[in-house]
């Protein structure tokens, strides 16, 4: 295992103070912090070999192209993709899913077909499929949840049916922390000839993810949640499907030959990467993958599971809050949503913020889930490799202060009115 205090030294931002207090960053499900080698990779690119890729004959361009494609290899290897070309660079998970919806989705989902999502999807894996369903006169089905916040698979065969063309779901829920049973759902999808899209936004950063082992057809993920810069992410597509897919955007780089009235397409993956790509951030994502690989994803997951277990135990002791999501860390990532029926998460979030504790409050881009749970918002702390038990202790102690502050305030107010 690794030494968390050593890891913390690699992240310049963790040394800073907020309102004169040491930062406790527990908003990792929104975006992670960046290690120095990632920041350095950006600087190196801009200071030493900034140039366009795939088209120059000069040294800098060749260097940039090599580094850019090397990063793709690293990312492909990191997620267990058999070929580097099966990873398309995008801005983030949202763009990856939209790309898929607008290409494969429109060409393969036909009137009467069914698309299956779950009640815990992020808007980015729900709204694009609403659009495809509307445009194609297809049916969008939503797998419900159990009270514990896991998928209710008791009636799964009525959701995944011979009409199903696609089953799209998150590997780890950003709003509940639930780790979904990927292999079981994939098997169900295979049995009816449906394709599987895995939203890996929350899983790829925090656990070993191997697309070949999981047997998904598509996987979307974001760089910025796994220590890379914002603005870079990926879409994995199984090679035989990718070869059949029509381009998403058209223009430079993605063409082979162009006439006045027509064009032919470049090889994969360039066919899907029209225009000058996000070279610097892609290269920096390669550096992030190096960093995570050095730590070892088994170790990252182990740390996260241990810390999650600790946090769940400590937070369960706070009577005034309800913890959401499964309590078994074997099926839970480092995401800790909670709420109090009297005190709005926004008020709690503001109190924690003034003690330099960064958490997220709101609907977490999962309004259908909030509605299903009868809530408008929750407070969410989310952990990563650099978080410590001391930070969890700080969260628990300040949270208790906040509950007392607002609880007493409300009581006092009721007396005075």
């Amino acid at each position, binding site marked *: 295992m690794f030494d968390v205090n050593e890891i913390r030294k690699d992240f310049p931002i963790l040394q800073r103070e907020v309102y004169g207090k040491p930062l406790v960053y527990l908003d990792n499900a929104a975006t992670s912090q960046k290690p120095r080698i990632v920041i350095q990779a950006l600087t190196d690119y801009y200071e030493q070999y900034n140039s366009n890729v795939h088209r120059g004959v000069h040294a800098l361009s060749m260097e940039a192209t090599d580094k850019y494609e090397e990063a793709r290899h690293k990312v492909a290897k990191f997620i267990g993709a058999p070929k580097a070309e099966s990873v398309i660079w995008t801005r983030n998970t949202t763009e990856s899913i939209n790309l898929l919806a607008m290409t494969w989705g429109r060409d393969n989902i036909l009137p009467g077909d069914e698309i299956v999502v779950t009640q815990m999807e992020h808007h980015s894996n729900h709204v694009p499929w609403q659009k495809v369903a509307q445009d194609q006169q297809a049916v969008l089905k939503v797998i419900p949840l159990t009270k514990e916040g896991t998928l209710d698979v008791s009636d799964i065969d009525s959701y995944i049916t011979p009409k199903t063309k696609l089953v799209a779901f998150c590997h780890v829920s950003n709003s509940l922390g639930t780790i979904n049973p990927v292999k079981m759902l994939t098997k169900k999808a295979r049995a009816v000839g449906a394709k599987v899209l895995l939203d890996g936004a929350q899983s790829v950063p925090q656990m070993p993810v191997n697309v070949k082992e999981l047997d998904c057809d598509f996987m979307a993920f974001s760089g910025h949640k796994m220590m890379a810069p914002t603005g870079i992410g990926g879409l994995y597509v199984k090679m035989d499907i990718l070869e059949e897919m029509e381009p998403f955007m058209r223009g430079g780089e993605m063409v082979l030959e162009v006439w006045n009235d027509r064009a032919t397409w470049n090889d994969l993956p360039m066919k899907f990467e029209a225009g000058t790509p996000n070279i610097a951030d892609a290269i920096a994502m390669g550096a992030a993958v190096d960093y995570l690989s050095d730590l070892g994803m088994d170790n990252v997951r182990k740390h996260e599971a241990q810390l999650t277990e600790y946090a769940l135990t400590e937070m369960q002791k706070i009577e005034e809050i309800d913890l959401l999501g499964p309590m078994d860390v074997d099926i839970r990532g480092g995401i800790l949503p909670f709420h109090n029926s009297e*005190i709005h998460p926004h008020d709690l979030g503001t109190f924690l913020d003034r003690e330099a504790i960064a958490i997220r409050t709101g609907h977490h881009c999962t309004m259908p889930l909030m509605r299903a749970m009868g809530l408008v918002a929750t407070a969410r702390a989310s952990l990563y490799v650099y978080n410590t038990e001391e930070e969890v202790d700080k969260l628990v102690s300040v949270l208790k202060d906040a509950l007392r502050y607002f609880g007493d305030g409300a009581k006092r107010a009721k007396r005075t009115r």
Partner: protein
Amino acid sequence: MTEMDELYQELVMAHGSSPSNFHEIENADRTAEGFNPFCGDQLTLYLRIENDVITDAAFVGKGCAISKASASLMTEAVKGKTMDEAQAKFTAFHKMTTRGMEEYEADGLGDLEVLAGVTQFPTRIKCAILSWRTLESALKAEGEKVSTE
């Protein structure tokens, strides 16, 4: 007083935890819906208007202490006021919450002044403004759901 205490003054806590005029109005002359997409908070505002005067105002919805206190105080403040006077109060309130007390010349916001602390919390200004934006929409009878975004 800490910034926290300045934001969550006793009157804010009081109106936040047990708001005034927290109910629907049957056969209201105007209703409007407000929504804060940032946090999911929502409220529905009801007005009864006779000869340009707001004779009754009430709201229902879900929100944080700041947004509920603001809506509660707002309904108290606009009752008995003409529509123009209510609009002028919004202008004054908006100035106070976005620019702060120093720039704001007190012109009879009364209890609403307890919400001045929100200027120190930029992410929370929308919470305080939501009910007022909804009021504005109701006064203009726009009939569209207003959003703080």
